[in-house]
């Protein structure tokens, strides 16, 4: 614990140096509520310095760097992250409360995969050549310049990398704001970026509150693009800030209330296990959580029985222990919010089938909770809880399932469990969400597009699709005989 922490960098990472900020923020360990350390936070001066550094680096160095050199720097960083993977995993578990078994097997494993994937795109960006009557058009896909990223606390390094990867590959420089709740793993990555040989100013990592640091970045006139992952409420503010400042391009990855639909011909054992992963992974603090489960009538009772049993087995406790599956919520604020929703569920008349209370008496642990007898218009069915709380309901047939699933302003993800080909294909086509999982849930990879429909945001991260978010298209039209 102490050894890991002494290795943690402090400061704001600007222009390849760690510098102090305008203020400090206490970073708390959610397993025990104790302060780990105080992190430097960025005020106006530091935000300006970071953006200026990114701008200068882009104009003078990065825009003159060949794609293959960008690729090689990214590959080197991937190697270094792999070397220090365990350290990063421990820092994240201490800082954010995610069990070490997952920060190892999911978060930090993803980092080098993601970087290597996008390093591979760096030298493959291609515009088209389009020939029409009298005109030869060369379409260039150019970098934007300085991009800003606002990263949330639920996957601190993973979500940083989903933005760094494509931004760097497409030739941009970046100012990333980590969450003030989980700033530490990003700083470790910053140190590795310097070691990998990235020129100063290409990657800048700062932290601070959304209302201050985040707002400053969203409004900065020298930032031409911002990518935000977080709550819908904050997403609206980012969009507003862009409109009121310089119309910077915006990507929003917001919340969800994703339906998990289980048909009677599903493999029920597997469906139970996947459903657990769908809602309780990282204690429900995942934007794609399958937080509404719809079970076909005929298997409802059987499913509830098996699900309660399976959920009851999950080991809860200190996230640094190898065997822990369920850790604390990330902060006191989050804890209070989730407990508030549990209260609302009880008050509105839903049945607590499992859990519904705090776990232990130290840290921000909440028992895995199941609500049944829920109505579609209940608060707990409509709003994103972002905690280990699931609502289970029933449906009669395919049409009703689709209707219930689509009955939400959100549209991030959905899951379908069925062994019937037609059911799977029909439902996946009808559901209004950006991701549809078939016979699985919460399966992520760097090569496929990720993003929402409707109120869950716009823009896509991951895969080839994300490249369009970080480039701008210029059509160069050459006269080849067009008359005046």
């Amino acid at each position, binding site marked *: 614990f102490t050894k890991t922490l002494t290795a943690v960098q402090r400061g704001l990472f600007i222009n390849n140096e760690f510098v102090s900020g305008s203020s400090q923020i206490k970073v708390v360990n959610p397993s025990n509520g104790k302060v780990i350390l105080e992190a430097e936070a960025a005020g106006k001066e530091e935000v300006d310095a970071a953006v200026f550094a990114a701008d200068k680096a882009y104009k003078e160095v990065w825009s003159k760097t060949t794609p293959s050199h960008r690729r090689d720097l990214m590959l080197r960083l991937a190697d270094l992250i792999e070397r220090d993977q365990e350290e990063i995993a421990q820092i994240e578990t201490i800082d954010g409360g995610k069990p070490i078994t997952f920060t190892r097997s999911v978060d930090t494993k993803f980092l080098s995969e993601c970087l290597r994937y996008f390093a591979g795109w*760096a*030298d493959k960006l291609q515009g088209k050549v389009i020939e029409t009557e009298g005109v030869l058009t060369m379409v260039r896909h150019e970098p934007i310049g300085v991009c800003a990223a606002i990263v949330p606390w639920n996957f601190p390094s993973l979500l940083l990398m989903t933005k760094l990867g494509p931004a760097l590959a497409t030739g941009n420089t970046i100012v990333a704001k980590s969450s003030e709740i989980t700033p530490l793993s990003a700083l470790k990555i910053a140190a590795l970026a310097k070691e990998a040989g990235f020129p100063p100013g290409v990657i800048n990592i700062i932290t601070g509150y959304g209302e201050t640091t985040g707002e400053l970045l969203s409004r900065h006139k020298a930032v031409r693009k911002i990518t935000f992952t977080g709550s819908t409420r904050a997403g609206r503010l980012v969009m507003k800030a862009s409109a009121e400042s310089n119309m910077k391009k915006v990507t929003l990855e917001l919340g969800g209330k994703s339906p998990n639909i289980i048909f009677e011909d599903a493999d029920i054992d597997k469906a139970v296990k996947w459903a657990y992963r769908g809602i309780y992974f990282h204690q429900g603090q995942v934007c794609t959580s399958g937080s509404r489960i719809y079970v076909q009538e005929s298997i409802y009772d059987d499913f509830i029985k098996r699900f309660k049993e399976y959920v009851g087995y999950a080991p809860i406790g200190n996230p640094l222990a190898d065997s822990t599956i369920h850790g604390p919520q990330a902060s006191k604020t989050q804890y209070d919010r989730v407990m508030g929703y549990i209260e609302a569920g009880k008050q509105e008349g839903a049945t607590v089938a499992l859990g519904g209370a705090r776990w232990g008496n130290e840290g921000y642990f909440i028992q895995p909770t199941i609500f049944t007898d829920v109505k579609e218009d209940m608060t707990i069915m409509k709003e994103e809880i972002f905690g280990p709380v699931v609502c289970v309901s029933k449906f009669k047939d395919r049409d009703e399932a689709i209707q219930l699933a689509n009955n939400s302003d959100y549209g991030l993800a959905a899951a379908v469990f069925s062994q019937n080909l037609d059911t799977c294909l*029909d439902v996946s086509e009808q559901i209004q969400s950006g991701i549809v999982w078939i016979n699985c849930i919460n399966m992520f990879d760097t090569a496929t597009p990720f993003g929402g429909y409707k109120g869950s945001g716009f823009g896509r991260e991951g895969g080839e699709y994300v490249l369009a978010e970080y480039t701008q298209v210029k059509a160069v039209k050459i006269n080849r005989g067009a008359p005046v």
Partner: protein
Amino acid sequence: MTAETQADIQTIKTQSGQTLKVHTHLFINNEFVAGHGPLIETVNPTTEEVICKVHSASEEDVDAAVQAAYTSYKNVWSKVTPADRGILINKLADLMERDQDELASLEAIDNGKAFSVARDDDIAGCIGCYRYFAGWADKIHGKVIDTSPDQLVYTRHEALGVVGAIIPWNYPLMMAAWKFAPALAAGNSIVMKTSELTPLSAYKFAALVKEAGFPAGVVNIITGYGHITGSALAGHRKVSKMAFTGSTVTGRRIMESSSTSNLKKLQLELGGKSAQIVCADADLKNAAKHAAAGIFNNHGQSCNAGSRIFVQESVAKEFIDLFTEQAKAIVVGCPFKDETNQGPQVSKGQFDKIMSYIKIGQEEGATLHFGGERVGDKGYFISPTVFTNCKNDMTIMREEIFGPVVAIGTFTNVEEAIELANDNEYGLAAGVYTSNHSTAIKVSNALLAGSVWVNCYDLFNNSVPFGGYKQSGFGKELGKYALLEYTQVKSVITLVDF
């Protein structure tokens, strides 16, 4: 007939006094095994001495290699994730970087190119090529195609299985990279036959393949004569595709062989007689510099060598003077000397062929403006050679010489230049030098060539496709286009019952 044999590892000495240990056995299934073909001597073209002998592959050995590739593809390689393929290919690049000096020495002693060129151009190019294609491995996408509401239609871009490759002696490691990299990225297993003139660097490379961690049988490297080893590989029924770089004559044989065996898919990179057009409004100094590189790079032993130059009459004298200055500045000598630009031609056979073209050129009435003789009396060195007053129907203007010999003619207007350039059976590459934007586009649009260079020549990048028109072959190497050569497309059409 008893096969002569020798131990795998042989010790050789370079003319710079370096001692190197080389592999001389066939690389099949991650092992170095003795071959059943004849032992072949590989000669150092600088000293004319035998470096060592290497094992060559008989038809039986070719079969063993193909079976190894097939089995590894079916049981192992096709189950490896795309991302893991990319990681292995990147590891190979890292190992080449680590051992670049040794690899460069082997190229210099076996092929004759300058050590610094081998290291800084060939091997650096290989490393970039592997890193480029490593990045494609996990990005080979099919499409989902919207046909009608009751159908789900998508395509898969699947690996072919076993790919056969036959590569030439002019860029031994780089020609290997141009085929290995996309083939492996796309998930294929390979059997590659190197040229019996330059087998050594590829066998060293084979050791790196094993060290990188590729499963046994995915990469197999053998050498041998075209008419024994090459022929057996080209005709093998378990090989799904043949990628060939070499002469047009051999290319035809490979095409015939495919037609009588299993109709294996083909990719042919053949010869060229590429034209460079120098317009009166060109920056003549720049043109002379690049045009000279265009023909004299690699001692003229490039399929895309810009071996015909057409200069606009009004600037012909000035250009020829500037061009000849460039030719004169080329230092011909031992590949291991720092100042050397141009080493020997690769073999006696090539040497004799080029010298006979020089003779024919003079006999047919072209002016021998510069060079034309052997350099020194040991080693296959030929002086950079410039013929002027050439007409497009002369032998030295029509046939591929594959040596440091350029034929220069003139033209009056650009339309004529285009016609002259296109009036040739080949269509690999071309160059145009002009300062006028419209001329540049007009001419490059009109030239029947797979690569057109404007105000430069011979600039390659791993992300840009390369491959000829007409009898220079078909299929593209490098760039995203190369992936199409190493995949096959399957359409899956599902009717959904709603």
